[in-house]
């Protein structure tokens, strides 16, 4: 898929900011034209004044100096004000549009996520790539402004004769064309590599940061730091290549600026004041073109970001399917004589050696992916008939890694379902045998549990994850090693609580466990083999 999905997303997001964008363009056009006029008019004024001064007192008296000198001052003020307006309105349009874009992208990503994708990588896309887009929004008015500046300069140059004007036009086109060629050759590769290198570096920092104990234990710090430094050096190299490319583009503008002034003056067939007006206007024109050249250079960064963003949108454009008719009153695992059929409210324990696919069976049922490993059926239809997003409404999963979001205990519990009362939260904590511990925490249920819940112990996280699953109010509870990390007494209490809760709520249970206490919770057992 091309970027068309992304284009729609971008244009929808920018619609609300159209007024700011139009204002920015208007200001940019006025600013660029007045900048050219200021230089040109000043050159004409001085030269005219010099000629009049040489020609004697009569010529001086005939020389209209009031109008041009007033115009010069006016242009200076207009240029300042409009440039401020251009920048402010342009940035306003860009920032507000892209805030919407970021959120839209995140939303699309969560609708059909690529769970294998590393989080640092994804965050880089949402933050940096979108920021690169910001650049394009900001530069759009400037681009149009530079066209206006170039046009104004051509008009002024026409006063120096058609040869000078044509020369200026050719030089401007040559500047843009050669910059475009250079930019295309020098910039896209490093621009792309910079973002890749940042994402890689960030990913590695995240991964190694989680391993600090092992790194200290084996004195691997220097090796790991060396690894990170070499990733960083890759990044620096690409940055240098990119900076060199950009500098070359700027150099083209400086050089052609000199050529343009020389050409216009050399080819002028007008009077000296008009020649000087044209020469200085040419300098202003190339300066205006320079803004366009900078935009061309930036385009490489933007394109690299766009490419990644388009990939994201392409992967995630399908809307979640509503699974109509999915009731979940009957779940069948396996086929033939060995099949296990469960009715609503039934309980099943799954055991088996590690790596035999117990966890992926649970996460598959829960609708996180479609690779179940075993033939499964819900309501007597094969799993393939029920798309993953639809299945999610049937199951409340407490996964093996008891994943938490950075926030408070309450924040994490409230993920389960909107509109939960505080009493409901405490009930769930009590059932999960965690209420007493939370009660003595400094801020109780609003205690901050750190990044990914790291301020809780492994067992506390497990039980918090369980409490959250209880709160979801789904017909089936899926638990992956719920009592791992618990002492024996708590485990027994947990088993009793869950037993009562399941009876009361008529909820079905599928639990993956090795522990006897938890096995006792289920009526039936399925032993998976590798």
């Amino acid at each position: 898929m091309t970027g068309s999905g992304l284009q729609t997303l971008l244009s929808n997001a920018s619609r609300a900011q159209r007024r700011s964008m139009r204002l920015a363009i208007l200001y940019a056009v006025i600013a660029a034209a007045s900048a050219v006029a200021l230089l040109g008019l000043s050159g004409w004024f001085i030269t005219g004044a010099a000629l009049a001064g040489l020609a004697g007192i009569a010529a001086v008296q005939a020389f209209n100096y009031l109008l041009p000198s007033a115009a010069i001052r006016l242009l200076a003020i207009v240029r300042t004000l409009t440039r401020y307006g251009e920048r402010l309105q342009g940035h306003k349009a860009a920032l507000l549009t892209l805030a919407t874009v970021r959120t839209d992208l995140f939303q699309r990503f969560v609708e059909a996520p690529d769970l294998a994708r590393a989080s640092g990588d994804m965050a880089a896309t949402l933050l940096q790539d979108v920021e690169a887009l910001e650049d394009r929004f900001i530069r759009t008015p400037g681009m149009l402004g530079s066209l206006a500046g170039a046009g104004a300069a051509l008009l002024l140059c026409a006063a120096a004769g058609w040869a000078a004007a044509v020369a200026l036009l050719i030089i401007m086109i040559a500047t843009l064309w050669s910059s475009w060629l250079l930019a295309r050759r020098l910039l896209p590769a490093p621009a792309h590599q910079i973002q890749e290198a940042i994402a890689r570096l960030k990913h590695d920092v995240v991964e190694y940061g989680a391993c600090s104990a092992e790194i200290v234990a084996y004195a691997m710090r220097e090796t790991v730091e060396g690894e990170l430094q070499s990733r960083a050096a890759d990044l620096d190299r690409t940055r240098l290549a990119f900076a060199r490319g950009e500098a070359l583009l700027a150099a083209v503008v400086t050089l052609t600026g000199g050529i343009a002034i020389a050409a216009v003056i050399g080819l002028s067939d007008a009077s000296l004041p008009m020649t000087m007006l044209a020469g200085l206007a040419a300098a202003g024109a190339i300066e205006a073109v320079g803004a366009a050249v900078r935009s061309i250079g930036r385009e490489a960064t933007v394109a690299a970001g766009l490419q990644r963003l388009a990939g994201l949108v392409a992967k995630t454009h399908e809307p979640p399917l509503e699974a109509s008719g999915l009731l979940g009153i009957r779940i069948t695992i396996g086929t033939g004589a060995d099949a296990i059929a469960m009715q609503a409210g039934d309980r099943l324990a799954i055991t088996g050696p590690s790596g035999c696919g117990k966890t992926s069976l649970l996460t598959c049922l829960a609708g996180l992916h479609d690779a179940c490993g075993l033939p499964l059926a819900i309501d007597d239809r094969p799993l393939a008939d029920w798309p993953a997003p639809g299945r999610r409404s049937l199951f409340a999963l407490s996964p093996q890694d008891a994943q938490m979001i950075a926030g408070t205990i309450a924040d994490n519990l409230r993920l389960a379902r909107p509109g939960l009362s505080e009493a409901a939260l405490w009930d769930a904590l009590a059932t999960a045998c965690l209420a007493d511990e939370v009660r003595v925490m400094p801020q109780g249920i609003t205690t901050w549990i750190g990044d990914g819940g790291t301020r809780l112990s492994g067992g506390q996280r497990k039980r918090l994850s369980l409490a959250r699953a209880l709160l979801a109010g789904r017909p089936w509870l899926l638990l992956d090693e719920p009592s791992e990390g618990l002492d024996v007494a708590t485990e027994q209490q947990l088993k009793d609580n869950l037993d009562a809760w399941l009876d009361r709520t008529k909820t079905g249970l599928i639990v993956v466990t090795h522990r006897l206490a938890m096995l006792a919770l289920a009526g039936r057992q399925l032993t998976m083999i590798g």
Partner: protein
Amino acid sequence: MRATPPSLLWLADGAGAIAMAAALACAAHFGLAASSREGLLTSLAGLIIAAALRASVQVAATGSGQKTAVAAKHGWRLRAFRAVLTASAGSRTMLGEQVADATDRIEDLDGYHARFLPLRFAAGATPLLIAAAAATASWVAAAILVATLVPFALGMILAGTAASRVAARQLDILGRLSGLFIDRVRALPVIISFGAQERVSRHLAEATQEVATRTLAVLRVAFLSSAVLEFFAALSVALVAVYCGFNLLGLLPFPSPEKLDLGRALFVLVLAPEFYLPMRRLAAAYHDKQIGEAAMARLTDLPPVPIPDDPSPATLRHPPEIAIGGLVVDYGERQVGPFTLDIPAGCMTVLSGPSGSGKSSLLNALLRLAPTSAGAIRVDGQPIGDLQGQVSWAGQTTTLLPGTIADNIRLARLGAPDADVVDAARRAGLLTLVAGRAEGLATRLDTRGSGLSGGERRRIGIARALLRDAPLWLLDEPTADLDRESADAIMHEIRQAAAGRTVLLVTHDPRIAALADQHVSLA
């Protein structure tokens, strides 16, 4: 302000501007004479040559600035990476923020060193050079240029301080936003399985919108200072043009202090915008300055890189005896402890206790990865030192470096012969797991360990512990999530390999606890 190579190159760019102005003035002079077409053409050729020189100086200045940035960033990275790798688990700063410090914040310094610092020097020195050159043609025009600096500086101070105040706050907000995105993406499976996508998205939308609005407020002020600059840049051109015009006309309202001709007048006119150009370039790099300085303020909070550890860190020559007395681990909001226990030498001590009682914190404290606020740990009667590299460790996560699986196991004991590595892998049960792979232990891994199962990762960690065979073993639930049979097999290997070593093992499994010489239950 140091004159570094890139800043001197930017100063040379100013000299190029003077040469261009001089060439243009000569052209006007010859144009006025109308007799010397040759002189005119020579001047114009000079103009082009000056422009070419200027262009090449600019390229050199940019490249040289980028190189100084690389050197500066390298120094910061030493500290930032160290901070990430020695961070205590459970610290309130979100991992996302730490990662942002080590990556984004350091990249924020790029423009500061590559562009802002060299340009700041040039912004101070080049206008002086330009004014001096202008003074040779018209000292009044030079004086006008310099005089506009006074109100300009006042305006910049007013607008600039306001801008930097808001900018520092802004950076904090951006850091938190980045942390928030990383965290929510990581927790995605949970968010999705509870159908909380919409609520989480809404929360992120509010946070993002707020950041955008605040950024806009910062820009409103930041642009004000550039507007001041623009104004004086334009005004200096206008004033010089008007002064020169009236001087040439002989219509100055005061006695003319000097007599200009066209060449001189054009020379100063063309120099007028160049006078402010370095400052405009600096203003364009103002964003680099803001984010660079704010990033530095955050980064200076990082602990400095310690002086290279003791040349001869106390090595554990024999299984140590460890005495922990009244140790309190303090995460700020949450405290665990005090712990008091003796771990006899050469024995296996099992640590169990209800979740949250601080078992893992205690292991981390032995590696000096947990912030302690009271008590002490003594090893063989001495205060605990750096145990880096002296421990057999197995825990919940496994560090993977690019290389083969065998290379990764060997990290625990560099230079270990292949036979030992294979043996450790076999005992950890890794050989049977990787038997299905075409290359077995020679399978190459990237840093992500792509394609490794959780069980394989866990066993690489255990193989390391076996291979290292240190006098001290620290094991944090090494068999959690393993089925009974694998857990028994692994515990059997650990029990054998660690016989006679000092072992501290955290577990909940009563069957494993039964293997211990000493069993400590934390309250």
